[in-house]
């Protein structure tokens, strides 16, 4: 058992890091904010941690904390202009944000190391630390999801006008969702820096944006379990069969299409709806949950 785990340790680490990114993307989508800024925010976190440790010798714990704060601050700043925009335009603006962060990382060679990135970061994060941090994030998100905040997020995603009429300040809760997403992304970025020995700008580009989106779409956007299941499924799939690994991109693309067309709620939320139906819950409650999973139609 131990040997088996050890042989798959790097895969497990990779999947755990992806879980962090997926959770960051999940938070905004649950609140009905169509942001795809996660790679940009994670990039900010990773560079913050790497620069603090390499240039000033800051210990990993403090670097991680600083990265989390940097991610939160960047997300809060971003939320001010974004709260004025609607769906598609939020997506376009955040794609632009990811590109801006990427090209600044490439341009500011003196600070970020340009295209070569920052290398030789001492490895200070192992599987145990990753598990702890991701576990903590999941715990916080589950608690938040069951509180007023979670209900406010769900209401906003289903219908903004109704949410407003219920006394929910949409702009404020969107900013909260952004801040959460930024904090998680910054944290995960720092973990990536301390785990991978290096930070390379291209890693945080359009490719990561699509992969992270795929995790959340595949897993589901309502339950916290969704992004985790998505990241695990897509992470393990290439290991199961060689042809799947060779055609990784085709599999990702085709899965995105098939899932959004035939299983629009994602794996976890679809199973949950089916389970509730079997329990024979009243039609009312099933419809309510279905609506929740449906998103703002």
């Amino acid at each position, binding site marked *: 058992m131990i040997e088996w785990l050890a042989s798959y340790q790097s895969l497990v680490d990779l999947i755990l890091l992806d879980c962090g990114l997926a959770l960051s993307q999940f938070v905004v989508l649950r609140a009905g904010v*169509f942001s795809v800024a996660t790679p940009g925010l994670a990039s900010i976190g990773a560079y913050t941690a790497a620069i603090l440790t390499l240039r000033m010798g800051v210990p990993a714990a403090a670097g991680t904390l600083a990265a989390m704060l940097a991610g939160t601050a960047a997300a809060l700043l971003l939320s001010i*202009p974004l*709260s*004025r*925009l*609607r*769906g*598609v*335009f939020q*997506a*376009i*603006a955040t*794609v*632009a*944000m990811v*590109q*801006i962060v*990427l*090209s*600044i990382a*490439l*341009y500011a060679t003196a600070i970020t190391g340009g295209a070569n990135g920052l290398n030789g970061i001492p490895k200070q994060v192992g599987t145990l630390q990753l598990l702890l941090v991701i576990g903590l994030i999941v715990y916080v998100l589950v608690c938040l999801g069951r509180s007023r905040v979670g209900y406010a997020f769900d209401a906003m995603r289903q219908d*903004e006008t109704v949410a407003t009429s219920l006394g929910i*300040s*949409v*702009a404020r809760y969107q900013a909260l969702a952004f801040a959460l997403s930024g904090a998680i992304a910054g944290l995960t970025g720092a973990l990536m820096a301390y785990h991978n020995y290096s930070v390379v700008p291209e890693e945080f580009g*359009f490719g990561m944006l*699509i992969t992270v*989106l*795929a995790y959340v*779409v595949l897993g589901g956007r309502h339950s916290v379990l969704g992004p985790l299941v998505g990241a695990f499924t897509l992470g393990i799939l290439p290991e199961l069969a060689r042809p799947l690994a060779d*055609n990784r*991109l*085709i599999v*990702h*693309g*085709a*899965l*995105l*299409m*098939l899932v*959004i*067309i*035939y299983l*629009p709620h994602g794996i976890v939320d679809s199973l949950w709806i089916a389970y509730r139906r079997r329990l024979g819950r009243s039609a009312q409650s099933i419809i309510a949950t279905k609506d929740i999973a*449906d*998103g*703002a*139609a």
Partner: protein
Amino acid sequence: MLAQQLLNALVVGSVYALFALGFTLIFGVHHILNLAHGAVFMWGAFVGLYAVTELHLPFLVAFLGASFIAGLLSVALDWLAFRPLRRRAAPEFSAIVSSIGAGYVLMSIAQRVSDTKVMRYPFGSFPIEIYSVLGLRVTLLQLVIVGSVVVTVAGLVAYIFHTSFGRQIRAVAINERTASLLGVNPAGVYFQTFFISGALAGAAGVLIGIAFNSVHFLMGEPYMLRAFVVIVLGGLGSILGAVVGGLLLGVIQTMTIAYVSTNLSDAVIFSLLFLILLIRPTGMFGTLRRETRVARE
């Protein structure tokens, strides 16, 4: 020097316009943000290249053939990726995800076909002739590029604003339900707009492929991201906006590269996108005021 730069900007900008026209057409008429447009563009370049190298067709035939096949590809895309979603009246998020998936599939097939190589049009597949006009260096290729863009735009405007088919397209753009009550067949309109959009992308692909003499499976992505800037600059869904936006982006990009820095040009372009979304999200010619902004207190 400045005049020469402006000329180059005109050429680059007109290809941007050609690419963005198809993108903005689909958004304007069907409100679909088609993120697979870059992949269709790339396939246009591939088909054109293979027609010249494998089938030894003359350039003009290859150009028209590539444009036609890219049009058909775009229609197939509509059938496979968007039509099932329309049936279910899925939210706009689904269409974006589905098109990302489709784009990925198309890109990885191209990667397979080309063995990840960067390919070139064989030397002499387009005659190299250089003219000197008012002290400026003008190549025949540049003239052909600008000429074909002018002809295409004129044709498109004539089609949309002066034919009965165009009237149907405009009717569906305003309201699909009302249009179908008035006897317009929406399926036919979808076929036309996706075909036109794909054909424009394919034509742009061949022109870019031969102008920069490089064809590879990732070539669509940067154009896709720049098309965001073009259409936001001009106004989403506006034909005139796409043309003016494309030319303007060409000028801005060429000037930044010439007088500031190559690496910074992306940061400048995408910051501009961000600024426009903030100050004037409808762009220069957009009329979608209601849809872009939301009033939040």
